[in-house]
């Protein structure tokens, strides 16, 4: 595992500007994500948190600025190229492949690692089968880590909400990313489910050394597990620092945390 801040930033956003018509979603947004850290992005509704996630992963094209990941310029790349570069994400409103089983959802995310062409897929025996078995081994490790053994052959459309969120995290992990962007992974969960999810996030961070960017509204979780926090308000970064500093920051209290 690489230590936080060891090799310089894994992701650099520099002067990102994103506008939809005359609505400025992000304005001159700059921040770094350090290797191996858990960075939380917080801010009131409409502050541009999800826009940042969508911009980094290629779903939105920024009008200004550059995004560098692992030294590579990924600004404006289509989402599937960004995923290939090593950035995985989850979605705010769980977006799974509802008709596939948990296993196949994770296997679908192994897509970029599989090479078998259309002919060997049609024959299946041999190359395609061997590749699928190897992919299955990787995926089973993730299922093990996230404690999803019992539901692995269930279609995700039939799963309860909390488990779907877990499957989505698993699917992101199946990409073996260097960086995961989690867009509100605990939204709508009860306390127990939240505790499980936080434990999994910490497990992933510690066991795999994956860098994690967390967009989250639950301040207890954010203050507990973040190495650093970035605060947005109206598309502008208003503060950045470790949890203890953020808690005391005047502007953050005024914009988001509130008095008391």
């Amino acid at each position, binding site marked *: 595992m690489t230590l936080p801040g060891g090799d310089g930033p894994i992701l650099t956003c520099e002067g990102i500007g994103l506008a939809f018509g005359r609505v400025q979603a992000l304005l001159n947004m700059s921040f770094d994500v350090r290797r191996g850290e858990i960075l939380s992005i917080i801010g009131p509704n409409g502050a541009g948190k999800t826009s940042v996630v969508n911009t980094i*992963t290629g*779903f939105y094209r920024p009008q200004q600025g550059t995004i560098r990941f692992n030294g590579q310029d990924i600004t404006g790349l*289509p*989402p*599937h190229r960004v*995923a*290939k570069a090593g950035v*995985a*994400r989850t*979605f705010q409103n769980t*977006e*799974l*492949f*509802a*008709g*596939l*089983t948990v296993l*196949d959802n994770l*296997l*679908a*995310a*192994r*897509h*970029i690692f*599989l090479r*078998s062409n*259309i002919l060997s*897929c*049609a*024959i*299946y025996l041999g190359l*395609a*089968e061997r*590749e*699928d*078995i190897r992919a*299955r*081994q990787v995926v*089973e490790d993730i299922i093990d880590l996230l404690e999803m053994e019992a539901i692995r*052959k*269930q*279609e995700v*459309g*039939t799963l309860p909400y909390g488990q779907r969120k877990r499957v989505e995290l698993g*699917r992101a992990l199946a*990409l073996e990313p260097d960086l995961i962007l989690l867009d509100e992974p605990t939204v709508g969960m009860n306390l127990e489910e939240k505790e499980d999810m936080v434990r999994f996030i910490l497990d992933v961070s510690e066991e795999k050394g994956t860098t994690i960017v967390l967009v989250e509204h639950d301040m207890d979780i954010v203050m507990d597990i973040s190495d650093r926090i970035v605060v947005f308000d109206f598309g502008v970064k208003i503060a950045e620092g470790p949890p203890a500093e953020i808690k005391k920051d005047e502007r953050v209290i005024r914009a988001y945390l509130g008095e008391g």
Partner: protein
Amino acid sequence: MSRIPFYPPSGVYSDSYRKDMRIVKTGKQRLMAIAGLVFLAALPFIPGLNAPYHLRLLIGIGIAVIVALGLNILTGYCGQLNVGQSAFMMVGAFTSGMLNAYWGWPFWASVIPGGLAAAGVGVIFGIPSVRLKGLYLALTTLGAQIILTWIALYGVTVTSAGFTVEPVRLGGIVFNTPQKFYYVALAFTLGMALAAKNLMRSRLGRAFIAIRDNDRAAEGMGIDIFKYKLLAFAICTFYAGIGGALLVHYMMWAQLESFTLQDSVWYVAMIIVGGLGSIEGTIFGVIFITVLKELVLVVGPMAQETLSFLPIGAASGMMLVFIGSVAILFGVLEPRGMAHRWSLIKSFYRLWPFGY
């Protein structure tokens, strides 16, 4: 489209991933599969079942299964509607037929080019799928049906008039009777069905379903959706082309009238009745619709004779209303198709007599 998970009977355990991924998992399934194959292979020699009429029906079903499998891969698995499948079938039919009739290529050399030609044309008409979804895409494939038919009718002299095609030959055997061609159709149908099953359980099938279920997430997981949509179009129309090539070599005559818009709509009906996103369901659906159409051809004139007070053609006409109603009823009562019913029957059998 949700499927009931396969719970193997007690005592059958998958102790390796390879075993867990098999299509045929238990000894009984293997036995049934072998028995089914033996039956299909022996069928032309079973008295009572081997009338030319039955064999012609079965050949028709086999060819339609191939074409409908392609359509189900595109529509059922990848979620892209295509109402011009028979036009792509026509491309394959005429390519293979003309290679045979005018350049003397034997069937075995011209069948793959037929499929590839159809796939090439299919990819061109698949390009709008980058931007269009659902009904809008259906409209472009409807355009394909009309454009391709127009080209065949007015653009090329031989295809508008129709032409004779040589029968399939292998060694000294000429497959020019239903009894002989049955084996060609059977081999192609089984081979193409197995290939479809394999494609859909491999990385390609998972990518297609991912695009169908959630194209945003599919893109986020590293799947190039444009590329894979076009690939789905290519596979779909390749199947159509192979089916078309088989048809002209079976009929030994290539004509435009075999590939109408109505046929395209029937293929869509077949996969909906059978089950979108299911290989077995495709086969069920084709058999169901084909037998129903045949029934109408038999029962229609009979009804007309019995109910002689009706105006001429009324009873036969009503039979089409009957098929249409059956399709509607399927949509209401079993929207997941016969494949779902089949999996219910299977799980009932497995759990019997302890259904709960």
